[in-house]
Each structure stands twice: as structure tokens, then as C-alpha cells.
């Protein structure tokens, strides 16, 4: 019934808005839209590509005023405002109905279901994610006799060795703040574990808690001896790649998207490597950062029937496999295979398959205001470690305001 009504006025036009303005994501969507149209000859896709940064503003407008039928976004707390404002469609039926997809979706994407669930319902379909960890210069490690560190002591010792050799141990560009949250998240996940990360980002623990202090104690061990790149506050994450490419810096705590620009700048599999962020508190199960990209149906969409077909299409193992081959990222559907011959993806897949749990990222798990103040605080701390107490007290004040 519904299908008939909607197809009379909008016969088979599916409007898709995405923020895939970067080369690889754009190519990936070009590919899947073409494939979707081939499989569904009755549907014509109208695809609007927004600038990646501008999209964050535009989506708030178009969901209300000119809603497409499908829009991409991110999992976790990032979609909470839209869900709460009733702008995203509940798509729990896609997750439940195994008849629509090849096999049971809830089972095939079990590890991602939690980050798509708000209030017991699912609000979109995840199609890609990627790992975070430490990217490093293999040749610099070899030249200084360092092996890949698996414990915190080894990691700090490696930093000391590199620093003594005149190499910046860890590069970082914190101009846009979020890179600092990657470091914080990993220190927190390794010191206190995944549950504490979620408690903190959900506002259940004060920032002045001794466990948070413990995270900064570890951070001190890196910041105080100057193991991070100087002037990081003036650099974007891309600009901070330069010292690593030039061999002036050895490591970067980053997401897998850093591999492409590093390789473009001349690094190869032979001198660029990846390792899991080392263990800090022994015995704490290793959780990882794995931000997930998703597709949603706006609740004001005109052609929800075809939008659902598109979401189901996006959840399929073969489709996710193809998208992620182009993106150079990891598929969510566990029946998809991963691009062969990419050591970074292989390492990431292996790591995430064995992960105890997956955090989205500080700024996706925590509400926007807390995230913004938190990351500002992290950046200030990295430039002035002696202000730690003042910063934590300020963040605690913000926490009490944000989570009322």
C-alpha cells in the first residue's frame, strides 16, 4: 500500500545526500549507486554530494526543510540529537527481519548493533569502519634497535630512545582538537577499560575521579619529557604527517585513513607499519577505537520504500565488501571479505575481530558540548601539563552542566 502511494508522486526517484567529497569515499558511492541502479532498474537515484565539513551544518537544515530519502552519518552519540528530534526513521524492522537480507542482520553485524541502538531501536545501517592505533616508521625503529612495543614500559622506553636519537617520538596535529581525543581515549581504554570509557562519556563519572587522574599520570609520562611534536596546536592532522614522512617523527596515534596520504607522500609498506596501542594495566581486556559510518532514512523522506531497499542493499555482504575495497576500510558485515594484500587492513581486521569492545571515539560517544570542552582541555593539557588539575576541574564543571 505504502509503496503504491509513494511511487505515484515520486515514481522511483531516490534522493541520497552524502558527505563523501573526498576521493575514495566519492568513488565508493559512485560505484554502489551505479550498482544499485543496475539491480533496481525502476529506481533513479539522485545523488547530492556535500563538502565533508559543510555537511555537518547542512544535514541539520535539510533533514527538516528538504529531506532526502537516504543520508549518511555516524554511529553512537553523534546520531542522538537527530534521533531525539525525531528526524531519523526507526529501521529496527530491517535489523529484525532476516528474510530481507542474506542471513540475519543482527547476527552478521552483531558487534556494530550496539552503536546503532538508541532506546532499544536501531536507527540506521552501518557500512564501514576503520581501526585506530599506532602508525610508525619501521625503518626508524630498526635503525634505533626498537622492536614493536606491546607493553607501556616498552612504549615509553621506545619514545626515550627515539628522543635521544633526535627524532620526535610521536607526531600529532591538534589544531582541530580531535586528534588529542584519540590519544586520551587509548590511554583511558588501556588504563581503565571500555566500561570506564563509556561511563565517562555518558557522564556517570566525575573528571576529577582518581581513575581519570591515572590516565593523565600516564599521559604525563609522554608529555613531560616532550615525546609529542612541538607546536602541535598550530598544525592540522595532515600537516603533522610531514615530519613523519621526512623521517623526523616516528609514530602517530591515528585512524587508518592516515595511511593513504602517508603513502601518497612516498612511504611504502616496507617503511610504514601499524601496531595496536600497547597494554597499560595488565589484565584489562583490549578494547579498540573503531568509528563507524552509517546510512539513515530521514523520517520526513518522501520515498521510504526505495530508501529501505537501499539500506538493505548497503547491508549486504557483497556490497560492503566492494565499498570497503574502494574505501580501504573494513566492512561491518562479517561475511564480507577484506581487500587482500593490504597489511594495514589485515592487521586492523585481526585486531578488531579480537577486540573486547569497540569505542566510537570520544567526540562520538560523548555529547557535543562535553566533547568540545574536553578536547580543548586535552589540547591545553598537552601544551601545559602542569595545568592538569585546573583543566580537570573545569571539565568537571562542564560535565555537571551537560548531563543534568
Amino acid at each position, binding site marked *: 500500500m505504502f509503496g503504491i502511494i509513494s511511487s505515484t508522486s515520486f515514481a522511483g526517484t531516490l534522493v541520497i545526500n552524502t558527505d563523501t567529497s573526498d576521493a575514495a569515499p566519492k568513488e565508493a558511492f559512485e560505484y554502489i549507486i551505479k550498482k544499485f541502479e543496475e539491480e533496481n532498474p525502476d529506481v533513479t537515484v539522485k545523488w547530492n554530494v556535500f563538502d565533508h*565539513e559543510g555537511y*555537518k*551544518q547542512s544535514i*541539520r537544515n535539510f533533514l*527538516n526543510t528538504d529531506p532526502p530519502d537516504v543520508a549518511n552519518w555516524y554511529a553512537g552519540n553523534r546520531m542522538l*540529537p*537527530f534521533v*531525539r*528530534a525525531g*528526524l531519523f526513521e526507526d529501521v529496527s524492522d530491517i535489523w529484525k527481519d532476516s528474510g530481507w537480507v542474506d542471513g540475519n542482520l543482527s547476527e552478521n553485524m552483531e558487534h556494530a548493533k550496539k552503536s546503532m541502538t538508541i532506546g532499544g531501536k536501531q536507527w540506521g545501517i552501518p557500512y564501514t569502519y576503520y581501526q585506530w592505533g599506532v602508525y610508525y616508521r619501521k625503518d626508524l625503529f630498526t635503525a634505533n634497535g626498537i622492536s614493536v612495543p606491546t607493553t607501556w614500559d616498552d612504549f615509553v622506553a621506545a619514545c626515550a630512545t627515539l628522543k635521544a636519537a633526535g627524532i620526535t617520538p610521536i607526531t600529532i596535529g591538534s*589544531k*582541530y*582538537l580531535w586528534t588529542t581525543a584519540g590519544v586520551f581515549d587509548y590511554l583511558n581504554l588501556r588504563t581503565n577499560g571500555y566500561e570506564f570509557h563509556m561511563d565517562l562519556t555518558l557522564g556517570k563519572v566525575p573528571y576529577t575521579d582518581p581513575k581519570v587522574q591515572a590516565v593523565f599520570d600516564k599521559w604525563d609520562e609522554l608529555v613531560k619529557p616532550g615525546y609529542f611534536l*612541538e*607546536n*602541535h*596546536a*598550530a*598544525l592540522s592532522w595532515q600537516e603533522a604527517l610531514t615530519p613523519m614522512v621526512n623521517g623526523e617523527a616516528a609514530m602517530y596515534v591515528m585512524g587508518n585513513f592516515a595511511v593513504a596520504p602517508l603513502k601518497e607522500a612516498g612511504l611504502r609498506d616496507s617503511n610504514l607499519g601499524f601496531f595496536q596501542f600497547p597494554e597499560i594495566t595488565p589484565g584489562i581486556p583490549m578494547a579498540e577505537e573503531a568509528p563507524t559510518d552509517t546510512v539513515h532514512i530521514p523520517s520526513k523522506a518522501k520515498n521510504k520504500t526505495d530508501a529501505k531497499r537501499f539500506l538493505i542493499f548497503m547491508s549486504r555482504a557483497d556490497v560492503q565488501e566492494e565499498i570497503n575495497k574502494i574505501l580501504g576500510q573494513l566492512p561491518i558485515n562479517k561475511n564480507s571479505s577484506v581487500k587482500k594484500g593490504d597489511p594495514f587492513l589485515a592487521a586492523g581486521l585481526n585486531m578488531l575481530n579480537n577486540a573486547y569492545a569497540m569505542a566510537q571515539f570520544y*567526540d562520538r560517544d560523548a555529547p*557535543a*558540548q562535553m*566533547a*568540545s570542552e574536553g578536547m*580543548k*582541555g586535552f*589540547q*591545553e593539557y598537552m*601544551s601545559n601539563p602542569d595545568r592538569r588539575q585546573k583543566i580537570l576541574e*573545569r571539565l568537571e*564543571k562542564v560535565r555537571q*552542566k551537560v548531563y543534568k
Partner: protein
Amino acid sequence: MELNNSKPKRITWWQKNQVKISPWIFLAPGLIFFSIYVIAPIFVSIGISFYQWDGLSPSTYVGLQNYIELLDDEYFYISLWNNVKWLIFFMLAVPIGLGLAIFLNQIVFGIRLIKSLFFFPFVISQVVIGLIFTWFYQPNYGVIAPFLDLIGLEGFSILANEDTATYGIIFAGLYPQIAYCLILYLTGLNNINPEQIEAGRMDGAKGFHLFWNIVLPQLRHATFLAIVVTVIGALRSFDMVAIMTQGGPYGYSNVLAYYMFEQALSEYGYRMGYGSAIATVLFTIMMFYILFFIYRMYRNEREDNN
């Protein structure tokens, strides 16, 4: 015929009031758009500042909560203080612009070309200037890096240091602002009465005296205008901050205009009420200044008419 003439012509209401009404008709389009796009938003914005609203969900009335929070907000004071720095140091554009204008106010071959070159920075978009100065300041790679090395500040980053970031941005902002003041003074200098200068010379005025007592008073209007545009420029210093530091490091180069944007409209913001409260404070500061400006203008016009 004579009888016809003696009969008084009926004067319509329109004919009677034409002179009074027609200016309003001509003003109407401007007034309507000014009210819709300038006046009304001011009141709407002040209204929003009493609410908590993310721009999507329904808003809740919170009274003065946003303002109370503002009083306890460290970043707000940092931004306010930076606005003061902007007001003070941005003023340098006025004397520098005047100096350059006097320097360029001579008749030499090709002076028109040189004048237009000096005016050039004003034509370039603020965004481009911000971007280029960011590259200039780039530690180790930037144009000024060798000079910083000379004074022992190797690898120093102006924009990453909380003490220098604001000055770095103001300096970049001065670049087009000086050109603006320059052009104001150049036009002012064109209108100087040569007879007065001659008279002054005959009375023995020279050099600085001549400039201070005879030239500068005649540039009064240009000076006034230059100060006005510079103050407004300083208070709305948004684009430079957005391009060069985004308020960083950790909010230390923020100004009220950008902080408002950050809270209300940036990626992590969407606190419309709080942003509006900041806007209201900024508006109040500007209002003091604008009222003073209108009063001055009113007084000047009366003086000129007398």
C-alpha cells in the same frame, strides 16, 4: 470663464500630503528590508538567549540561566579580553594608514600605480589573507621562520602559543585595514585647502607643526571615519580568527564573535540560547559605541550647518 476660475479647485488628500508622504514611500523598501533582516533578528536573538535550544528539538525556557553561565565561563572572559586587545592594537591601522597616505600624497611619475598597489591588500579577501599569514607563521617552514631563528626562537609557532596567537591574528588583520585607512586619508588629503597651508607657511609653521595644527584638523572627517571602520572591524573580527586558529590554542585566541559562532553553529555547538546570550553581550558593547557614533555624527552635522 472668470466664474470658473473663482471656483476653488478641490485639493485631494494626496496633493495636500504629497510632500510629507513621498519620502516615506521612497524609504519604504529600505525600511522594510532593514526591519526584516536587521532589526527583527536582534530581538529574536535576544529572545532566544532566554531559552535552551539545540536548533532541532523543542526549546525550553531557562530565564537568565545562559547569562549566569556566561559569568562563570572562563572562555567568555578570554574572548572578551581578546576583543579589548583587538580594539587597542587594531587602532594602529589609523596612524599607519595616515603615515602612508602622507607619504603617497605627492606628485611623481607613476604615483597612481603605486597608490593602487598600496590599496591592493584591501581588495584581497580576508580569507585569503588569513590563509597566507598562517603559512607565513608556520613553524620551521614559514617565511618568518628564519627571522625567528635569528632572535633565538627556533621553531617557535606564533599561532600555537596562547600568549602570541591573538597578536599574530591582529597583525594579519592590520594588513588590509591599513590599506583601508590609507584610502580614506588619501581622499581626505585631496580636499585639503591649499590656501590655508600657504597661510600657515607665511606665518612660519613648518614640518610637524604645520601637519599637527593645519593639516590634521582638516582631516577630521577622514580620521573619524577611519576610527569608526577600524572599531567595527575589530569588534567583528571573525573571519581571520576562523581561518587562522579557530579560536585556538584551546580558546586563547577566541573573540566574542567567533565564540558565539562556536557555541551556536559549529560542529560541536548547537547551543542556540548560549550563543544568543554571547551575541547579546557583543551587541550591547557595540550599541554603546554606535550610540556614541550617532551622537557625534549628529553634533558634527549641526556644527556644519550653523
